[in-house]
């Protein structure tokens, strides 16, 4: 279980292979995002969270930090495949106003 990074039609797809995305892995994940943005010049990023059953505040914070960094270079991070509790968390914390969220990968890729 880990992360996988691939590129489809110019969009960098980051899939999270953890069921629990928590403080333990948030730092490592943030480093990965920052590396992709800073060193690989990624501007279009899609984070696939369909495996994730629970994402805590550290992990959500890491994604938001990534978004802040990528918006500085005029890029965007979009989110794919939220399980119901995680989706509810995006709604309740109003993060859905900050991220575009998709259920379907093709729709997400097309939206960039």
């Amino acid at each position, binding site marked *: 279980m880990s992360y996988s990074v691939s590129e489809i039609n110019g969009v960098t797809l980051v899939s999270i292979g953890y069921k629990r995305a928590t403080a333990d892995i948030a730092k490592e994940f943030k480093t990965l995002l920052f590396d992709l943005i800073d060193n690989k010049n990624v501007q279009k990023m899609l984070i696939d969270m369909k495996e994730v059953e*629970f994402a805590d505040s550290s992990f959500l914070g890491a994604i938001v930090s990534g978004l802040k960094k990528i918006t500085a270079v005029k890029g965007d991070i979009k989110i794919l495949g939220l399980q119901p*509790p995680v989706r509810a968390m995006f709604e309740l914390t109003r993060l859905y106003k900050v991220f575009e969220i998709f259920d379907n990968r093709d729709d997400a890729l097309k939206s960039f």
Partner: protein
Amino acid sequence: MKAMILAAGVGSRLMPLTLTIPKPMLPVANKPALEHIVNLCKRNGIQKIKMNLHYLPEAVDKYFRGGEDFGVEISYSIEKNLLGTAGGIKRIQSFFDETFIVLSGDGFTNIDFADMLRFHKENNSKATIAVKPFEDTSKFGVVVTDENKAIKSFQEKPKKEDALSNLVNLGIYIFEPEILDLVPAKEVYDFGYNLFPDLLEKNIPFYAYETDAYWSDIGSLEEYWKVNLDIASGAVKDYADYDKEVAKKIYVNTSSKIDKTVVERSTPPILIGKNAEISKGVDLRGPVVIGDEVFIEENAIIENSVILKNTYIGKGVEVKKSVVSQNYHMSVANNFGTFIDDDAVLKSHFIIPFKTKFNQFLIRSTDRTVAFFALLFLSPIFLLVAILIKLDSKGPVFYKSKRLKSPAIEKKGSKWYVYFKEKPINYYVFRTMYIDADKRVKELKNKYDGGPFVKIENDPRVTKIGNKLRKTSIDELPLFWNVLKGHMSLVGVWALPIYEAQHLLDKGMKGEDTEEGMDLTDVAQLRFKGRPGLAGFWQARGRSNLTAEERALHDSVQSVMENISEDDTDYLGEYAEFKSYRGYLKMLFETFKSVVRREGAI
């Protein structure tokens, strides 16, 4: 003509309203959205209606049954696996043995079917789409036609400048039954993606019927809120069928009680459902829609809002520009009134149950017990620190920081304001700055560029001993006194000084000089809903390496998790655990561990 109503949507964008009610059953002006559509069918002479259902189907079935109470025949097709708009109809093809109309269960309209059918027949059309001109097409599917309204092509959500037409597809279709022969069986098949391109390719007569009828989706909370208030305002013809107009544009069902003075002082338009009770002194600032069995106590203010049924609103509660969900129990949590801000969505069944009360009691008792013993054991250290502060610089030992226990906030225009209805509380910490520091805060304000959470490195206002106290967090230990007094809990969201709270609300997470970039204001202001406390998520989870955004996220998530309703605990699983006494203890332990670890590192 027969009708097919597509009512299988989950309504995930309308969460949490749709946690317990499927989207088509959400009340629009006090009736389920579907009922309006069924009535519209009946008014247009349609007798036989089929609905496809998927999410919480029993709620629809229970309400409409065979349609006997609504003067039509209703039958259902329950889709365990969604088949797409066209695939769902193909499944029940035998029902459609004559011309039929397809309507969306979550669109709201007063379109004239009879006229649309006339247009369909006149043009010998096999498939007709209802369209309406829209100024901004960027959220809709656009239909491009020739001068005879024959459809030539489609565009999906084009920007205004790219749009080849301003005609938006309303999701209302009239079809001839043979159209269904083009749809493959047992496959996910969609009108927009699959069938319509096929019709164009095969040159089948395919027309757009232009209408100026009212139409709105209820897919998002904002749209849902707007449709309700539009109907109350009379923007939709034929929909204000309320029993009694007690004053101009104030409609009250005869079974409801409303105090006379309320009618006199309130601003129309107002719709009030069945068996509601509105007490004296209540100020209703229309447009307002109040559902069945809603009870509003004295001096409450409801402005620009939709209150769904069976909700209790206590004395002096203010609800503005909000949707309050069903079965909500909102009473005065404190003596200065409860304030529901913009875009608030309150979930169902929010009656504080005994278990929660008992948890709160345990948490408060633990807070006070721990604080008492902490103060007792720490008193020798306090004495020592007091001497050191006195020796280091001139001034008092303690610093009083004025904070709001739980600041109410309000949005006016684009700005947020902290509500000063309560008296600020003095929070006691050890003085770590020179005594004229407060005066210098204004000059230093520009340094708070990253938002209010940024700690200034090598702040010249901080004394030498102050610096050490801050690093070790010893300066905060006197806050146990505030915990003992019940001003704050051991575990909660850090209470911000008033000017920092104001800054956060005004600027969100943006700095003074960076107007660009993302705006976390909506997310960050959620923190004010949380219980104030000494230690929260970010204090426990590596405080110093976090960016301002991460800290804001920690605070907001914590606030949200604290406020998860009992009803959603199963659904939200691990997220809801934090609310319990066990979660509180876990958090307390985590913070303690992190403090010890930090002390060890110094």
